[in-house]
């Protein structure tokens, strides 16, 4: 059975799933890259995604409007980003532990709201697939790339947009300066705190959107701990991608391809244990971290709260 398992239809299916599944990784990891480029490690991404996923799911369930759901998810992400920035920028708390606190808060809050307001797992009608004219009609390629829902396209468009923003705009340069040498940026009149607030909030809003894409574009439902650590993998992808949107894209595709492969192998009843298969992305993350950590230089002020007159 293993010889003829990889037919053209299956390969197309795996690649289509891979593109789709990359969506939440892309939103969350590019968002985290903004925060980290400014020097703040936000480990609460998974918690923000969970609350965002619930918000989008619940609003869609109540109003039937997926767009409103996504908008609310972004706003909720923004609010949690404000909380994270207040704790880690204004109060200069240890970023690792604050992020874990935010994660626990998001995990608890999304479970609490889900149990109180919804109770049972149910599906919503999420974003519909939009076939791109002409391109979507190309055999194989069309099915893989051009017959997805709007959030999927948006996630991939975010990559060049984020690159342009970080490399070609004044704000992007400020974010990088604040992450590399906050004291120098400060002496040139750049408000370190303001830039970090902005970056963390932007990243958190994207994390909220990542959650929304999960609950209203990929699986169209919500359950407790829906993300199952996806947000942490997204943080790892930022290291793996060397803080560059293109690197993150490569990492996200690698991960989603492994995930899609694993899901399809289970569907097809291939002879591997599902527990082993589910372990794959996590093992891959560790391997990726080993591979990436010493290869790229991280923002010099990463994980360091800035205090005037200290350096």
């Amino acid at each position, binding site marked *: 059975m293993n010889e003829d398992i990889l037919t053209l239809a299956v390969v197309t299916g795996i690649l289509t799933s891979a593109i789709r599944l990359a969506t939440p990784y892309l939103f969350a990891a590019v968002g985290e890259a903004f925060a980290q480029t400014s020097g703040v490690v936000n480990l609460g991404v998974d918690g923000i995604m969970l609350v965002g996923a619930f918000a989008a799911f619940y609003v869609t369930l109540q109003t039937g409007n997926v767009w409103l759901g996504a908008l609310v998810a972004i706003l909720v992400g923004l609010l949690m980003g404000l909380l994270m920035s207040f704790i880690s920028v204004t109060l200069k708390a240890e970023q690792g532990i604050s992020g874990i606190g935010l994660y626990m808060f998001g995990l608890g809050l999304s479970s609490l709201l889900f149990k109180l307001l919804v109770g049972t797992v149910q599906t919503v009608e999420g974003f519909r697939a939009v076939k791109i004219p002409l391109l979507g009609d190309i055999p194989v390629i069309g099915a893989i790339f051009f017959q997805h829902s709007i959030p999927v396209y948006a996630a991939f468009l975010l990559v060049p947009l984020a690159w342009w923003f970080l490399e070609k705009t004044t704000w992007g340069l400020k974010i990088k300066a604040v992450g590399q040498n906050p004291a120098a940026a400060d002496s040139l009149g750049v408000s370190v705190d303001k830039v970090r607030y902005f970056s963390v909030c932007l990243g958190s809003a994207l994390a909220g959107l990542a959650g929304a894409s999960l609950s209203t574009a990929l699986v169209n439902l919500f359950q407790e701990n829906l993300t199952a650590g996806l947000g942490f993998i997204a943080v790892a992808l930022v290291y793996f991608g060397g803080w560059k949107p293109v690197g993150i894209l490569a990492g996200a595709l690698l991960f989603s391809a492994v995930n899609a492969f694993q899901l399809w192998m289970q569907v097809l009843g291939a002879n591997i244990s599902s527990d082993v298969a589910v372990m794959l992305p996590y093992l891959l993350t*560790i391997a990726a971290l080993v591979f990436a950590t010493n290869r790229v230089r991280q923002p010099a002020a990463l994980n360091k709260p800035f205090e005037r007159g200290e350096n």
Partner: protein
Amino acid sequence: MPPAPQSAPQKPLARLPWKNLLFGAALPVAAMLAAFLLGAVVLLALRVNPFTAYASIFSGVFGSLSGFTQSLVKATPLLLVGLGICIAFRASMINIGAEGQIILGALGATAWSLAFRDLPGWLLLPGALVASFLAGALWGFVPGLLKARFRVNEILSTVMMNAIALQLMNLLIRGPLIDPAGVAAGTYLAQSERLPESVWLLRLIPQTLLHTGSLLAVGLAVVVYIFLWRTTIGFRIRAVGLNPDAARYAGINVPGYQALSLTLAGGFAGLAGAVEVMGVHHRLLEGITSGYGFSGIVAALFGGLHPLGLIPAAWLFGSLLVGADKMQRAVQVPSALIDTLLGLVVLFVVGSAYLSRQWAARREIALSKQGKESEG
């Protein structure tokens, strides 16, 4: 910072530690109150009466002997996990991997007890504890090694190790470790066979769950205190955490001690898994960690990352967890409320650390000014 005054006659310095201790306890308590206040707002918004919810937490713990002993039973794994977190945090290693380390410990104790069930109890029981410590330690050693050797961020690697441990357990309790009785009955429940009675931890009060593991945990808290503050290795672990550059300059192998601290942290979390299996459930089953890996972090932070401060902190959070279960049953407020509040407590505790540093610095300046005035 101005130099500390050498002779400050009218303010005896001996009184300061007490003040600091009070001050140190006041901030976490304030953080807790703030979290509960915010929780009340959330409950009000959800049209739940916060007073009924909070009152049911309190009466759930103090309303009955069973509630009270359960709080001690839940405090036990929290204390053990927290001790490990203390050791790791003291070397500034953030161990988020306790969930996975608990699982490994529970697996180790279960596998040992079932494999060598014919051994006499005096050998089987300590052996199970050692097996759990080693298994947990292994799960801490891997991220420790990755940190020391490849500088891999330990937070991310420990989170991944949690997910891997969970799948490993699922694999084992559905496969090699599955209860033969469940297979025979055709239920295929995902749990292990019941452990031989010789490894069950003694119940301290009949008809309750309170077991000797609680005493073991308190004893180990004292041991960890002595280890961290009275031994060379403990001193070096703390030195690495306080100032890695100075520690390196003093010839301390910084990555080595960081890895050691994570390994020890894993061992203590592993013991927490063992007491759950040997003291409470008497078998390995799904959900064995009950989230202790995360609530243990909260307890450790709340206890000021001090093994002795951790004892009351663990009991406090054990009570909260018991109260949350009772609340869920009595007034139908999901116990996830407590998880939410625990997250807020973490945020507030780490956030207030900065304020307390600032206040401490200000007080020191004020004190030194007073000293100078009295000299002049």
